[in-house]
């Protein structure tokens, strides 16, 4: 299950729950309370319970999700087999392999909007920009976003990615960069 799907399902379940609670409240509002003070006391008791459940729930989610960040220092073995310099510019992607892999097929020279990489090796993309901000969004053939980082002028963002098997992948620009933003894409052939 992709992360997007999990996020979507979680949101859907939450929305259904929120709407059901809202419906219950709307429905209950039709009857006038005979004991308003007791009702209020119960609501505020419930608020304390909700506060603790929410706090514990969010803390647990934080604990779980902050373990798996996409940043370089969160990788146990950040030594990549291949290092690719990626430069975004209006409106194309330039690739240059800085560290060549020990084995496999790969692009030997600087390439534009096209890159060949070997599969099953850890790749470090060193992403930057020659002009404005761009977004380096890595998609698979089915159009699912696998990960991303920003391409910023004057900075290098390091994105580690492991292509498990051969296939075609795509790069789409994910930061608005001007009138050619929607045309700025590249193809990565993993052999």
């Amino acid at each position, binding site marked *: 299950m992709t992360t997007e799907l999990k996020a979507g399902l979680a949101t859907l379940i939450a929305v259904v729950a929120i709407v059901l609670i809202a419906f219950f409240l709307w429905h209950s509002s*039709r009857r006038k309370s005979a004991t308003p003070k007791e009702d209020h006391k119960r609501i505020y008791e419930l608020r304390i319970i909700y506060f603790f459940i929410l706090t514990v729930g969010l803390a647990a989610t934080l604990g779980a999700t902050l373990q798996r960040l996409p940043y370089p220092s969160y990788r146990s073995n950040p030594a990549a087999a291949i290092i690719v310099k990626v430069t975004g510019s209006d409106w194309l992607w330039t690739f240059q392999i800085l560290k060549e892999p020990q084995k496999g097929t790969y692009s030997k020279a600087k390439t534009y909007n096209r890159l060949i990489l070997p599969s099953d090796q850890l790749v470090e993309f060193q992403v930057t920009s020659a002009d404005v*901000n761009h977004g380096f969004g890595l998609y698979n053939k089915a159009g699912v976003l696998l990960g991303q980082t920003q391409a910023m002028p004057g900075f290098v963002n390091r994105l580690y990615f492991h292509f498990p098997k051969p296939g075609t992948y795509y790069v*789409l620009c994910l930061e608005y960069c001007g009138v050619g933003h929607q045309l700025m894409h590249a193809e990565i052939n993993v052999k």
Partner: protein
Amino acid sequence: MNIIARQSPAPGHLENQTKAAWSVTAIAMFIVFSIFLAMGILGVVMRLNQGRWLALDPARFYSIMTLHGLLMTGGLFIAALYGAWYVLVRRTGMRAHAGIMAFMLLASVLGVAGVVIGTTIGKYAPGWYMLYPIPFLHPTWPSWSVGMVTSALLLIGLAWTGVLFSIFRSLGEQYGYKNLLGWQYFTSTEPRVKIRPIVLITMICLIDGTVAMLSGATFLIQYLIQWLDPAVQYNVLMEKNLIFIFGHTFTNLTLYFLVGIIYELMPRFTGRPWKTNRIVVVAWNTTMIFILLAYFHHLYMDFVQSESLQYLGEIFSYASAIPATVVTIFGLIAQIYRLGAKRWKFVPATFSLGALGWVIGGFAAIVDATITNNFVLHNTLWVPAHFHTYYLEGLFLWILGFTFYLVGSRAERLAKSALAFMVVAGYGFLSMFYLGGEWSVPRRYSDYISTPFPSHILSWHGELTAQIGAVLGALFLLGFLLYLVSLGFVQRQHVTELSLPEDDAKACMVPGE
């Protein structure tokens, strides 16, 4: 006596200043609704273009996108700001400074005109948060448009800062500056100077608003300097931080100014008190801090940003969900549970449904504020999905309710029909954004024709969601037009209705308007 008014003006003066505040606010709402309608139509035009039912030149599309973003966020902020000011004047009797407020509104309108000229004639199109250095490195818009829009935005920012300080001064005179954050509730549950929740929440907004305006003014002045002297360059990461301190805080404050209005007006319709106490004070004081620190979540994908700040971004994004929902939503539940309202009135209905939109949009925001999710959701359609939820089905409904109260319309049934229309069409419209986010469709694309996927999976997803979204967005606007008609059925205004600080408790017990 619950509250001590520092300066108690004569009742005649209160009546006059409330009338003046009413006029200024009514003009502000007229301007905001005109902006909303025009920008709403442009929003539908963008979805039509993304759905390939229109074929705009990309330069035109992105200038429309920039205009839509700037004027929608700005316009709705004006509604929130002037709405909160009006309710404060009307319900606390604080000094209105209506002349200053009218002048600042005029300055804002001039600024809006500058933005419109720059984006339409100049086709200025860096997006509403104009990420540095895009305004200066682009061949498709002329240099004058950069100067014009930047100066216009600076003018608007100065006007709003003037408004913030004017309200701050009035509240300080009314309650004493040291009491505005409610800290007196820590020394006594029955403090000598009590403040209403709207006073506390507005004060939080004034402090964070000042931070936002300072940060916004900083980058806009920097932009102006570079526009005058192109040799000047700035650090891209620093500019991004400044932009998002401004943008994130500003958006949240639009919500919170309106939340203050709900605390104040909801009891007028339910007859149940909703007062400040220690929990409310703690919740809003912590919210003041959390909002400012949560903005880091906009920079998760800037891997060079310090990782400790990324951590803080997620922690404070989560934390900001706690006080807001626990205190405000449960307060609202206490207002409506077993109320005995056989038929809901329009105003409390918009407040409650708006709160629902706020919670749903907030949940989707938390999902995206989780770094591991952001890795695959950032800058997909999930982003417009969540912020359109708490704008369109959240704070916009609150603005509709407030304006209905402001003009004193009697057309309950018509307004409720319009509301039902806007809720059904609006959630349908939003669901297309969510679905697009689920399908990894990038946001801010003029069209999806040229995406490189075999059999055009992404193009198909992008276009389908845009087409359905366009139809539902247009239906939402029809509902809004219906609502505008309902505002025409006005009863004689009772602008003399005042709730002075002295009759705070009594005012809260008035059953309905």
